[in-house]
């Protein structure tokens, strides 16, 4: 009989969903059973089902979702100790009968190959799954040129969003002359709505270390730096542990596996500035300066960190590398379409039934990702748009749901692939409010170097503010478009150049909604506070006074057991009354 292993998902999403007390309970329940191993694993991607507990027994694996301190008792008693699987809350099953099996089966897991499976704090578990085999292969039997050519042949492109061929980037850095070179991992994931980098860093840190070391070998660098967001404390902790372990085992450090190749790695914590995701700004930040971009050329491949040749890739890009070396470029390029090869990880969030991380072959239609894998829109609501690419991206409307997810097709819609955040919006989302949200974000995060970005986005934000207040003019649309083009042309770096995208795409696909705000002074999604009113239906109101008690500004009056009224001039549109009404008598107009 094989050993029983109980896994618990302890990524930061799992912990946020309440995995810690479940883990504590699990440990208490299994105290007298040293033969049963409890393993803390990262996020498997089924975030909407967390906390997750998986039982591996007799070669079978069963995963339970929404586990609580109470339900974990049943799992332990019945299944772990009793050998009888429970039917309720069965999420994934190695027999294929779990409720989430179909959506997992549609995925291809290259980047997420170990996430949710291994304990990120234990290097042996990574090695068991062929970890560091690729590095071994590279340093013992390949030349630098063979390595970057293999990566180039695979068709891997930068997963941070820009989509530049990774192998080519490596080749440039390799050909660049310099006694000292750097490999940098951009783990600054600042895109609101994206969390794939966090999951990989937390759940499979060795994959990043191995990918970076291979890159170091390919370009001739001996130093690696992981620039990681300080907002991701668990990722930093797990990376630190992984780096120490890799050093102890000789996968990092001097003369790796007796090959003569040396590579050290350290972590640099980001300090919270979105613009640092831009590579020249990131380099400035590593050097301890304000993270302001500079013009290119020189490109980082010629002059990067401290003026030395530097290669910068995103977390997800590095996470692909060891797999490509181990399985060959042909195996990788089997997936995908056109110039987009391999897989892409997407973070599904927003108005979606099954939010979480998914990894699919490039070219899958957006519809399939959202409906077949993401479970569609909850509460019977209508799909309105999906926002891709964060502040640099745009909103893709319903008519374009069959667009395949590959770099070129997504770009053609006006959005971008970006790092892979997909925020789904339903009929209850106001597109002007969304455009304003992104503009206020870039306005906050603009480094201020270029006037177009600094002042142009501010002017655009003012116009959008006016429109959401019902004070827009018809000429505002043309003014916005003019500003969009000027900011695109006049900005130095990607932040400014792409900042107008959310506005451009919402004007392109949702002009009706702009006109409703401007001409009719109406917010069709009933979101914009200045354009909506809360009203009580006197027929339905039972006079329970709950709304009046909950109103923070005393805008509701009425006698007990008699219909109440809201004074629109005092109301601040917080919506507390609507939430507190037990009979649904309050509506928004």
């Amino acid at each position, binding site marked *: 009989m094989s050993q029983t292993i109980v896994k618990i998902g302890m990524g930061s999403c799992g912990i946020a969903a309440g995995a810690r007390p479940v883990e504590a309970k699990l440990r208490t329940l299994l105290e007298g059973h040293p033969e049963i191993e409890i393993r803390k694993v990262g996020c498997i991607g089924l975030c909407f089902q967390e906390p997750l507990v998986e039982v591996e027994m007799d070669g079978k694996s069963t995963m339970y979702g929404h586990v609580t301190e109470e339900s974990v008792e049943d799992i332990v008693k019945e299944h772990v100790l009793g050998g009888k699987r429970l039917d309720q809350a069965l999420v994934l099953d190695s027999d294929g009968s779990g409720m989430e099996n179909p959506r997992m089966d549609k995925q291809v897991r290259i980047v997420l190959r170990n996430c949710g499976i291994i304990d990120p704090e234990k290097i042996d578990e990574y090695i068991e799954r062929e970890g560091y085999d690729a590095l071994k292969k590279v340093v013992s039997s390949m030349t630098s040129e063979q390595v970057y050519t293999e990566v180039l042949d695979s068709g891997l492109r930068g997963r941070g969003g820009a989509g530049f061929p990774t192998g080519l980037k490596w080749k440039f850095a390799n050909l660049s002359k310099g006694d000292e070179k750097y490999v940098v991992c951009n783990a600054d994931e600042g895109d609101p709505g994206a969390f794939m980098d966090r999951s990989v860093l937390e759940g499979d840190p060795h994959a990043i270390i191995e990918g970076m070391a291979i890159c170091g070998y390919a370009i001739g660098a001996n130093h690696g730096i992981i620039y990681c967001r300080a907002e991701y404390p668990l990722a930093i902790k797990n990376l630190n542990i992984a780096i120490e372990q890799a050093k102890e085992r000789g996968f990092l450090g001097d003369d790796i596996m007796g090959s003569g190749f040396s590579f050290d790695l350290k972590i640099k914590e980001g*300090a919270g*500035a979105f613009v640092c995701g831009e590579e020249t700004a990131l380099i400035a930040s590593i*050097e*301890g300066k304000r993270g302001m971009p500079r013009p290119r050329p020189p490109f980082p491949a010629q002059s990067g960190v401290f003026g030395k040749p530097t290669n910068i890739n995103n977390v997800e890009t590095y996470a692909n590398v060891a797999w490509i070396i181990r399985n060959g470029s042909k195996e990788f390029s089997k997936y995908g379409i056109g110039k987009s090869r391999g897989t892409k990880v997407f973070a599904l969030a927003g108005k979606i039934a099954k939010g979480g991380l998914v990894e699919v072959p490039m070219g899958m239609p957006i519809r399939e990702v959202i409906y077949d894998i993401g479970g569609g829109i909850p509460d019977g609501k209508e799909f309105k748009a999906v926002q891709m690419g964060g502040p640099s991206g745009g909103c893709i409307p319903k008519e374009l749901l069959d667009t395949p997810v590959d770099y070129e097709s997504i770009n053609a819609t006006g959005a971008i692939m970006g790092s892979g955040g997909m925020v789904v919006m339903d009929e209850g989302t106001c597109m002007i409010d969304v455009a304003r949200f992104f503009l206020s974000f870039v306005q906050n995060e603009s480094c201020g170097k270029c006037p177009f970005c600094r002042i142009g986005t501010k002017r655009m934000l003012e116009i959008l503010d006016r429109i959401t207040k019902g004070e827009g003019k018809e000429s505002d649309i043309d003014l916005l478009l003019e500003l969009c083009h000027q900011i695109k042309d006049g900005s130095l770096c990607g932040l400014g150049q792409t900042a107008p995208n959310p506005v451009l795409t919402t004007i392109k696909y949702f002009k009706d909604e702009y006109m409703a705000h401007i001409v009719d002074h109406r917010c069709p999604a009933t979101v914009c506070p200045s354009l909506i009113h809360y009203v009580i239906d006197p027929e339905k109101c039972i006079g329970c006074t709950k709304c009046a008690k909950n109103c923070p500004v005393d805008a509701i009056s009425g006698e007990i057991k008699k219909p109440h009224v809201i004074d629109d001039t005092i109301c601040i549109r917080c919506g507390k009354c609507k939430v507190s009404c037990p009979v649904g008598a309050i509506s928004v107009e």
Partner: protein
Amino acid sequence: MSSTTTASSNELSQRLDPIVQRYQGKKGITIPLLADIQKEYGYVAEEAVTYVSKKMDISASEMFGVATFYAMFRLQPEGKYVIRICRGTACHVQGSASVAEEVARHLGIEEGETTEDGIFTLQHVACLGCCSLAPVMMVGDNVHGLLTPPKSIEILEDYRKKG
């Protein structure tokens, strides 16, 4: 800028010399240096920056330039619990603006401020990466998800009770 408190040079050297030693002679250290000052004082204290800048031969203006560029650094002390309300896209479409408003109203402070009793500091952050639990806020090191305005107040009151 004028310093509101004056510490003796003895006290400054006791608290800051270990930090200075850690970074002396290394390059590209302004951010971790400021982070260590913030760890020591709870914020980037002006007198500490002045002291360190002399010792390290980095101008104080450069250090403040860096400190004010990044969201991580604060020039004011903060409360016992820092509330970080996520204002990412997923949280936004799930109603984080109303959570943020309710919290600000309940605590009687604006974003960036600290309550008079020194218990809470309110911050908005770009994205915490817990999008599937949106809307989300962090209180200290703990993440709380699937918030509604009333639920967020309950959570904060629990922290207040703990003191």
